[in-house]
C-alpha cells in the first residue's frame, strides 16, 4: 500500500489549516499538523472530496497534462468520459465535440460511453449466473472499490469482476488500432483518458487490486474544457458521429449504470456518506432482494467529479438533452453461439478483487490492539466530545486514537488546556 500513487495532493503554501477538509474526509485520512493539512497515504482513497471543499485551492487533484504526452507515440487515442459531454453550453451534437478532440491533435477517439454499453451487456450476462454473491456491486468507481477494500473486506467478493468501462475502452481501442494500422507496434500507441476525477487517475497509475491498467495518460476534463470551450464545431455534413447510445452516456450520472441492466431490483447511491451507509447496510444483510448496487463517490455521479467544470445537475440535464438524437444503445457484442451467462474473458478483471488491506487496525498483535483500545476508550471519556478539529484530528475519538498511537499529544486539545488554565485559585472545580 505504501507504494500507492495518489492523485490528491496538498500545496502546503496555500493551506491555512482551516479544518474544512478534515471534517469532510470519509476515511479520516487528514490531520492538521504544524498549521497545515497532512494526508495519510494508506487511508486516502483519492475520492477528491477535499479538493471540492477546500476554499483555498490548497488541495489539488493531480493529472497528466496534454503537453506531457510523449511525442514518441505515433498514434494517440482520446478516451472521453461521458461526463465531458455535459460540460459545454450550446453543444447539440456529441459528434462535433469528438471532432474537436481530433482537431486538438488526437489521432482517434474511442468513447468510454461506447465501452460502457458493452460492459452493461457483460454485466447483464454475469448477473444471470446462479451462484454469484449478491447484491453485485459496481466496479466502475475506483474510490468506492478502494473504500470497500479498506473498510468492507467482506464485500470484496460482491464487487463486479468486470472491467470498468474506461479500462475496457483503452484495451479495445489499442487492439483495434493495431489491427487498423498494421504499420504500428504496441509501443507506438497511447491512450489518453479525459477524466472527471482524480480517483480514476489513481486507478490508471495503480490498477484495481491485481488488474493493471493499460491507460497511458489521464488528463482532467477541466483542462480539455479550457482548450475546447467556445471552439466546438457547428454541426456539418460528414461530421464524426458518436458511436454510443443514450444508455452509455447516462453512465455519467448516478443511476445510469444500474438502469442499463433492465432490472428494477437495484440501488444507486451517490456521495461518500450515502455510499458508506449503504455498504454498512449490505454488510448487515439488510437487502435480501437487491440484485445490483451502483455507488458513486461524487455527488450526482461522475458529473460531480472534482475535475469537472459544470454543476453536476446542470451537466446531467444537458446529457439528457442528447437522448433525442441517439439510439438507446449500440453495444454490438457478438456472442450468438454462447450461453446467456457467457461473459467474454477480455471484459473480465485480471483477477477478482479479494485482497483486504487492513489499514484501520491499531496493531498487528491483537493483545496490543486491545490494550490500546482500552486506553483510547478511557482517554475519549476525558475529551470534550465537540469534534472541534482544533487539535488537528477530525473527531475527539480520532484524537484519542492519535494520542495512544503516539502521533499527537494530549496538550493539543485546546479545550482541555483551557479547562486547566481556568482552575479556580482556591482549588475549586474548573469552570
Amino acid at each position: 500500500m505504501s507504494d500507492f500513487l495518489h492523485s490528491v495532493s496538498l500545496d502546503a503554501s496555500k493551506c491555512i489549516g482551516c479544518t474544512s477538509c478534515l471534517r469532510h474526509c470519509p476515511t479520516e485520512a487528514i490531520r492538521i499538523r504544524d498549521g497545515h493539512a497532512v494526508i495519510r497515504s494508506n487511508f486516502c482513497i483519492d475520492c477528491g472530496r477535499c479538493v471540492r471543499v477546500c476554499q483555498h485551492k490548497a488541495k489539488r487533484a493531480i493529472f497528466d497534462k496534454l503537453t506531457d504526452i510523449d511525442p514518441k507515440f505515433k498514434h494517440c487515442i482520446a478516451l472521453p468520459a461521458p461526463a465531458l459531454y455535459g460540460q459545454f453550453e450550446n453543444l447539440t451534437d456529441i459528434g462535433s465535440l469528438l471532432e474537436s478532440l481530433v482537431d486538438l491533435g488526437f489521432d482517434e477517439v474511442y468513447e468510454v460511453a461506447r465501452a460502457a454499453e458493452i460492459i452493461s451487456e457483460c454485466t447483464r450476462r454475469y448477473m444471470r449466473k446462479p451462484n454469484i454473491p449478491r447484491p453485485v456491486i459496481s466496479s466502475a468507481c475506483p474510490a468506492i472499490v478502494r473504500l470497500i477494500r479498506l473498510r468492507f473486506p467482506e464485500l470484496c467478493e460482491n464487487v463486479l469482476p468486470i472491467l470498468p468501462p474506461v479500462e475496457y475502452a483503452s484495451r479495445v481501442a489499442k487492439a483495434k488500432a493495431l489491427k487498423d494500422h498494421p504499420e504500428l507496434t504496441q509501443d507506438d500507441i497511447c491512450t489518453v483518458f479525459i477524466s472527471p476525477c482524480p480517483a480514476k487517475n489513481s486507478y490508471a497509475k495503480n490498477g484495481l487490486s491485481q488488474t493493471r491498467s493499460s491507460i497511458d495518460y489521464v488528463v482532467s476534463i477541466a483542462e480539455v474544457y479550457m482548450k475546447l470551450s467556445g471552439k466546438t464545431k457547428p454541426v456539418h455534413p460528414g461530421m464524426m458521429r458518436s458511436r454510443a447510445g443514450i444508455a452509455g452516456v447516462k453512465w455519467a450520472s448516478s443511476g445510469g449504470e444500474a438502469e442499463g441492466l433492465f432490472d428494477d431490483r437495484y440501488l444507486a447511491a451517490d456521495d461518500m456518506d450515502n455510499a458508506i451507509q449503504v455498504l454498512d447496510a449490505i454488510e448487515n444483510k439488510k437487502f435480501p432482494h437487491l440484485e445490483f448496487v451502483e455507488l458513486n463517490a461524487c455527488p450526482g455521479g461522475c458529473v460531480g467529479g472534482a475535475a469537472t467544470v459544470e454543476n453536476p445537475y446542470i451537466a446531467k440535464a444537458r446529457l439528457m438533452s442528447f437522448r433525442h438524437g441517439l439510439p438507446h444503445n449500440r453495444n454490438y457484442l457478438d456472442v450468438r453461439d454462447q450461453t446467456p451467462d457467457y461473459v467474454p474473458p477480455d471484459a473480465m478483471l485480471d483477477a477478482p478483487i479479494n485482497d483486504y488491506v487492513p489499514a484501520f487496525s491499531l496493531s498487528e498483535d491483537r493483545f496490543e490492539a486491545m490494550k490500546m483500545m482500552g486506553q483510547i476508550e478511557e482517554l475519549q471519556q476525558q475529551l470534550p466530545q465537540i469534534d472541534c478539529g482544533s487539535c488537528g484530528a477530525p473527531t475527539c475519538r480520532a484524537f484519542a486514537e492519535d494520542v495512544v498511537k503516539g502521533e499527537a499529544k494530549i496538550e493539543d486539545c485546546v479545550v482541555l488546556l483551557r479547562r486547566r488554565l481556568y482552575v479556580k485559585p482556591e482549588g475549586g472545580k474548573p469552570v
Partner: protein
Amino acid sequence: MAALHFHFDIDGEDFSSAGDASVVMKKKLRQLGFPSDAIRRCSIAMYEGEINMVIHANGGTADVDVYPDKIVIVLEDHGPGIPNVELAMQEGYSTSTEQIRNMGFGAGMGLPNMKRYTESLEIETKVGVGTKLTMVVGV
C-alpha cells in the same frame, strides 16, 4: 486478559438509528484486528438483536465484552417477553405488525439468524418483564 467492555443504549423511538450500535461495534472490532468472518457474524447477530429490541421492546441495552478469542454480546430489554421461545426460533415466524413488515423488517429471521451466526445463544425471557439474550461469537 481482561475483556474490553462496550455499552450501548438502544433507542426504541428511533427506527432510523436502529443498527447503529452494530456498525460502531464493527468498526471497533476491525481496529482490533479480528478476522473479517468473526466481525461479520458479530455484526449480523447484534444488528438483528437491535432491530428486535426496537420493534418489540421499545429499546433496551447492548453490552459487548471483547476477549482475545471470543466476543460476548448481551442484549437486555424490558419489553413484553417471548411467550413461546420454540416458536420464535422457527424461521419465518414473526409477531411483527403489518406496518413493521411494510418497512422491510419482521421477516421472522431475527432469532434464527442470531443462532445461526453465533456459537451459542441463550434466551432468558419472562412475559411482561423482559428478555435477556446472551450470544457468544467465537474467533
